[in-house]
């Protein structure tokens, strides 16, 4: 390594400093939420918490787990995520595999039909009318079926099939009398664990965090996913608070709700936090494959 000039060293220090600032800016709000969730609500309202928790207690978490809305929402989100992701995987594979094959006659036309939907769509209202006409309003299907295939994910998967699995293997299997479906289930899928992991994560996080489709298509409280409940507690509540006059009973109420809010943010993201190490590794891989193509 050539010795660095003084100017170059200075540049390096400036960069490390700037990145440290970025690091603090990103991580501080997250740490603050964690601290506030285990603190005494009064300390939060008084503004005594800056980084470390004060008056450590887990009351807020107890309250979160005793809240029927949250439990129900959590369960619903779990179901939607699992059902939705299974549908996504089957449908995306069913689209990506034939389109990855050079000898699939008509692939260009089908590809065009599919990719066009990335750039143009009917929009919110015709979509709503469709879901209504299919009698899917207020059912799980309204949340899991639209968006069953993300074109972007399909392209990533197709690219993987084309670039990472040698076509010769498929050819020789075909000569040995293996059907295309046989090739898919016995050769392609066993070799596709990394891309499947990427897809599971992409789709599952998408379902876990989904809000808009539930907002538009669901009106029945029993069917609300977690994010809709979260919105009620974190956002709608807050606006009401600001609008009303502050008195003593309200302060007590605010204290209860305040602590709960930080805890609920943590609880809502527990599955994502647990998955994060895998998420990061595989997601980055997914973005890279996507970038390669794009």
């Amino acid at each position, binding site marked *: 390594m050539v010795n660095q000039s003084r*100017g170059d060293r200075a540049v390096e220090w400036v960069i490390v400093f700037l*990145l440290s600032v970025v690091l603090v800016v990103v991580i501080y709000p997250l740490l603050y939420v964690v601290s506030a969730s285990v603190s005494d609500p009064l300390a939060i309202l008084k503004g005594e918490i800056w980084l470390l928790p004060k008056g450590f207690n887990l009351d807020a978490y107890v309250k979160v787990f005793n809240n029927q809305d949250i439990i129900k929402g959590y369960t619903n989100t779990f179901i939607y995520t699992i059902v939705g992701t299974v549908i996504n995987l089957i449908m995306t594979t069913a689209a990506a595999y034939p389109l990855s094959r050079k000898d699939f006659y008509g692939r260009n036309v089908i590809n065009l039909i599919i990719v066009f939907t990335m750039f143009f769509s009917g929009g919110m209202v015709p979509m709503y009318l469709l879901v209504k006409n299919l009698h899917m309003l207020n059912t799980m299907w309204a949340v899991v079926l639209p968006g069953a295939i993300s074109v972007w994910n399909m392209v990533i998967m197709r690219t993987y099939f084309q670039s990472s699995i040698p076509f010769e293997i498929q050819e020789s299997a075909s000569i040995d009398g293996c059907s295309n479906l046989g090739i898919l289930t016995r050769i392609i899928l066993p070799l596709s664990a990394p891309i499947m992991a990427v897809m599971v994560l992409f789709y599952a996080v998408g379902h876990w*965090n989904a809000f808009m489709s539930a907002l*538009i298509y669901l009106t029945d409280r029993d069917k609300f996913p977690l994010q809709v409940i979260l919105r009620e507690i974190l956002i709608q509540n807050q606006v009401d608070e600001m609008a009303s006059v502050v008195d003593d009973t309200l302060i007590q109420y605010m204290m209860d709700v305040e602590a709960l809010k930080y805890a609920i943010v943590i609880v809502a993201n527990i599955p994502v936090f647990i998955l994060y190490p895998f998420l990061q590794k595989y997601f980055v891989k997914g973005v890279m494959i996507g970038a390669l193509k794009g």
Partner: protein
Amino acid sequence: MKGSIMPAEATAPVKKLRTRPFKLMKRNWDLYLLMVPVMLYFVIFEYAPMYGVQIAFKDFMARFGIGGSPWVGFKHFERFFDSYYFERLMLNTLGIGVYELLVGFPIPILLALMINEVRSSKFKRTVQTVTYAPHFLSTVVVVGMLFLFLSNTGIVNQLLRLFGIEPISFMTEPGWFKTLYVFSGVWQQMGWSSIVYLAALAAVDPQLHEAARVDGASRLRRIWHINLPGIMPTIVILLILNVGRILSVGFEKVFLMQNELNMQTSDVISTYVYRTGIMGAQYSYSAAIGLFNSVVVFVMLVLVNWIARKVNETSLW
């Protein structure tokens, strides 16, 4: 894996491609079977709404259905263009789009260029792990955090009080809406958006740096003359996509941050469509607004792509 793209494509036997279509289709019948549910999905959930968009030119009445409702031409479009909301919606949508592009687009590039310069792999990994994390939070949680931090009792106003500044009601103040929207977006997405550029930077030939170093080029010069041109194609592609989509400001986050008090700066096309269409059941009118928006976005995308191809020889298609 990266290097194998070309060989894999090249090995697809040429002979096969020349086989008669009918023979190919017969041999691959099960591939078509696989495509059946896929095509059904696209027809039902993507193309049927496009067919349904004709209600923008009709007076939609449920009992006649989409096909049977009477045509009214551009009535709903005219009503929208003449409405009191038109100007406000366009200005807000465009304002947020441009603001987001100006701030949100360059920051990930700078971040990637900086991360690429870090020698300590431990520090590098830490920066990446931390900055990617907010990407996985839901929009509801991010907006919820904004409310928590920026409310009257939140940490930001506590800090202001400490310096003797009057607390600001950020979330209901119209003047703050766009800034909060854009910068919380940067906070959440800058790390994630930098991945693409980091991938492009990894592909820059190290020999170029070696040669430049021998010639005495400083670090900044090497970043400017080697790394930046190296990732330029990626930048251009993403710029096309972003400029093209300037008018397609996402619904979710704006909707969540919106309240009666900041409506003046926070009302955008998609939230208006939601209010009049889904809430107010004015299906035809709101479908017209939605269609107007999609068409403008589509045309802009094609236009920007065309310009980029003329100027830069890089394009989406």
